[in-house]
């Protein structure tokens, strides 16, 4: 599985013929649009410099990569990689931990709500 081009900082632009899910080459600017809005929200200019956005994207990808590798190290004892492994990694960082538990419980609530909504729709459909 070790592949020298698996490094996330590979700078080649991938042609459309290589955009498979397991491709290890990474396009530039994948998160560019999202990051511009995000950086503005956190205090940057309404129009951040493109170089800054590119640098932040590189840093974030490296951050996520390192974190995933650490999570995989933790998970390797148990077997599968689970969401709990990420929560364990950030256990010392209270704002992040609280935010993640909040997001997860919201996700659950939305799932329940959607389920309830579908059940109602079925009832309506069957009574027509």
């Amino acid at each position: 599985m070790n592949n020298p081009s698996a490094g996330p900082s590979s700078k080649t632009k991938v042609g459309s013929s290589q955009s498979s899910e397991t491709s290890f080459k990474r396009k530039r600017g994948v998160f560019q649009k999202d990051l511009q809005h995000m950086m503005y929200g956190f205090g940057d200019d309404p129009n951040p410099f493109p170089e800054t956005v590119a640098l932040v994207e590189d840093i974030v990808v490296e951050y996520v990569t390192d974190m995933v590798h650490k999570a995989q190290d933790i998970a390797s004892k148990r077997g599968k990689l689970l969401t709990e492994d990420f929560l364990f990694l950030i256990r010392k960082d209270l704002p992040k931990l609280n935010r993640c538990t909040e997001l997860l419980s919201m996700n659950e609530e939305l799932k329940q709500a959607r389920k309830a909504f579908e059940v109602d729709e079925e009832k309506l459909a069957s009574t027509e």
Partner: protein
Amino acid sequence: MQTMKQSKDPFEVAFEEQEESPPESPIAADENETQTPAAAAASGQGDDVGTSVPPSLPSTTTGAAISIGAAGPIVKSKEEDEEEDEENMEIELGKFPPSGDPDKMAKMQTILSQFTDEQMNRYESFRRSGFQKANMKRLLTSITGSSKISVPMTIVVSGIAKMFVGELVETARIVMTERKERGPIRPCHIREAFRRLKLEGKVPRRSVPRLFR
């Protein structure tokens, strides 16, 4: 589904409140709070653990479209993004700033009602921005090499990454004030911010140094 109109979007409520009654909290405290809306909101978000079930939950899928129409003065320059971002917004709009705690909610409403247009714009970007689920999923798949990345995992990693971006940008702004520079953030500020975050231990370090970058 289009007839569900009871979205209680915080921007909408704040605008209504502005017309009804003046805020009751002391001005001095408010001024400080309105100066750093992003920081206050960020820490407010972080403190929350329990969330009460918002009454407008069933309408969150359409809540996005409806509250956009209602909160007119807010600049809506990202309308094309709305469809793609709808999944993100379901999560964002279904939750109000410190929910479940009436005191915090009231505080938040008074803060929001006093936002200038620019502050409201920025706060909106702060709440709504996020990483695309599909892109994050693709990234996680390519890192782990396994094909099954669960949705909660994507959500958690996106949340962590967004907060990390926040730390980077805020630290970069601190660096800029120290250097007495203004304007958009430049890469040198981000690099210095990243260096400081590493010193604080907020960045996972590899026990084996990275080769062949």
